């Protein structure tokens, strides 16, 4: 340090007499008399241990396993998850796609006393009914043609661990009954076997569907819902998590720039505005994908709006176009229809189309030929769509 040097601040560490590595902050400054002559140096060393401990506590409060968030909704979830993990109750995780249901399930397993045992994941929507049954419960050699050897089911594989049933809303009704019997006596009967296996399994289920609604529509068994719904964790969509979008944007940018070895400094103000105002229908998964895209596209420096995927920077035009088309169609079939409510962005296209058909049917007094004409569709198209949307 020279006499003319500005005061400096450096973070480092030292080893104290107790042989402990202590993080420190050193401040150094030159001391001068009123005439500007150098009279000495001042050096202060600050112990950063209390600050680091506080940092660790804060970051713990904002995350659990790989989940990150500081919105009040997520903080509540972070508080409840470690407690849930310690119990053995069934957990039902609900939330839109991309909200992190799989991560919560795995985090619950990892934080539980079953962490050393297997975590077995089954996607109930991915396999046909017959395959799913043998996949879940296993079968005995000779149970059916092709069963040349015994097969352990996922329940058996998850013995002493956790079985994660994702997309439980897609589980066929017949299997729901079988699952129900497992919940009652915890015994698994492989196909073709009379001998059961006592499986010590914790069941964690997840779905993006509204199970209560499915119960009302008789597509999901009420008694199974009651058994699964011992503890419910609802993951809020990203658009309802105030301030989390910014946190996650920075988090993924840090991680991905490191992974791709890019020298990206951050987002420009305009880019940040676009990213924060976006509604993220695909939630955190979509946000991560957007950042991955921009990190790939952006050469270095700041991320500018033209580095973002096109659908983010030109959404207004697209929405306006589709809105205008839909509005025209709706008005032609039903001028009194309340457009403000029907055009809510959360609505899916299928819901919108169903509404349009209903409105046209009402206008034509239920006459299908006139309805098809009004919609400028062929009769067969109208018939097909009515069948698809179950309009009788």
């Amino acid at each position, binding site marked *: 340090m020279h006499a003319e040097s500005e005061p400096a601040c450096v973070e480092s560490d030292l080893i104290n*007499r107790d042989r402990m590595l202590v993080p420190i902050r050193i401040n150094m400054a030159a001391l001068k008399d009123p005439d500007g002559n150098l009279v000495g140096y001042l050096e202060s060393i600050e112990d950063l241990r209390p600050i680091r401990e506080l940092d660790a506590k804060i970051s713990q409060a904002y995350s659990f396993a790989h989940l990150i968030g500081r919105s009040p909704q997520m903080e509540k979830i972070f508080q409840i998850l470690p407690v849930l993990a310690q119990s053995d109750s069934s957990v039902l995780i609900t939330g839109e796609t991309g909200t992190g249901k799989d991560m919560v399930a795995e985090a619950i397993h990892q934080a539980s006393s079953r962490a050393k045992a297997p975590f077995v994941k089954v996607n109930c929507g991915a396999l046909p009914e017959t395959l799913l049954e043998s996949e879940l419960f296993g079968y005995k050699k000779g149970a059916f043609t092709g069963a040349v050897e015994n097969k352990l089911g996922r329940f058996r594989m998850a013995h002493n661990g956790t079985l994660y049933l994702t997309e439980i809303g897609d589980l066929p009704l017949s299997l729901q009954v079988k699952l129900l019997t497992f919940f009652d006596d915890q015994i698994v009967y492989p196909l073709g076997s009379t001998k059961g296996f006592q499986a010590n399994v914790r069941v964690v289920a997840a779905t993006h569907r509204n199970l209560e609604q499915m119960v009302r529509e008789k597509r999901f068994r009420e008694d199974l819902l009651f058994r699964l719904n011992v503890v419910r964790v609802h993951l809020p969509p990203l658009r309802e998590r105030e301030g989390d979008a910014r946190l996650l944007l920075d988090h993924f940018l840090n991680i991905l720039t490191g992974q791709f070895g890019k020298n990206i400094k951050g987002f420009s103000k305009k880019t940040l505005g676009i990213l924060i105002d976006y509604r993220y229908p695909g939630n955190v998964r979509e946000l991560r994908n957007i950042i991955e895209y921009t990190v790939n596209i952006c050469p270095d420096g700041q991320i500018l709006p033209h580095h973002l995927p096109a659908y983010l920077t030109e959404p207004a035009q697209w929405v306006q176009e589709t809105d205008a088309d839909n509005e025209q169609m709706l008005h032609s079939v039903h001028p009194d229809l309340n457009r403000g409510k029907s055009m809510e962005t959360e609505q899916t296209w299928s819901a919108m189309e169903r509404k349009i058909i209903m409105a046209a049917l009402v206008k034509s007094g239920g006459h299908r030929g006139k309805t098809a004409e009004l919609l400028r569709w062929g009769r067969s198209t109208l018939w097909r769509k009515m069948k698809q949307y179950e309009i009788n």
Partner: protein
Amino acid sequence: MSISSQPRPKKVLIPLYGDDVAPRFDLATEAMITFGGEAREQREEKIVVLPQSSPEKLCHLVLTEGIDVVICSGIEEEYYQYLTWKRVQVFDSVIGPRGAVLERFYQGMLQSGDILY
């Protein structure tokens, strides 16, 4: 006839920073090893330069060279315990020029925490 069993002279390692004991065991890139005898004229010295600072490699050097005593300044508990477990005597928190420190050691007066300036 009896064979007199003279104790082997102790082999000493001092991590160095210039001519002084290195302030940190884990950050030292040089070490001095002395052997041969307690008297200055009998003593032999060699300097080992490490490719980079590494407390693990320094511990490995201590064991492969058959060092009996390590004289250093700041050392983390982990490495201190490891060396003492391996029956290496460690004088830590010693501050001073290497010559003065060695003399003090061979006089049998060196203690952990000594400052020899």
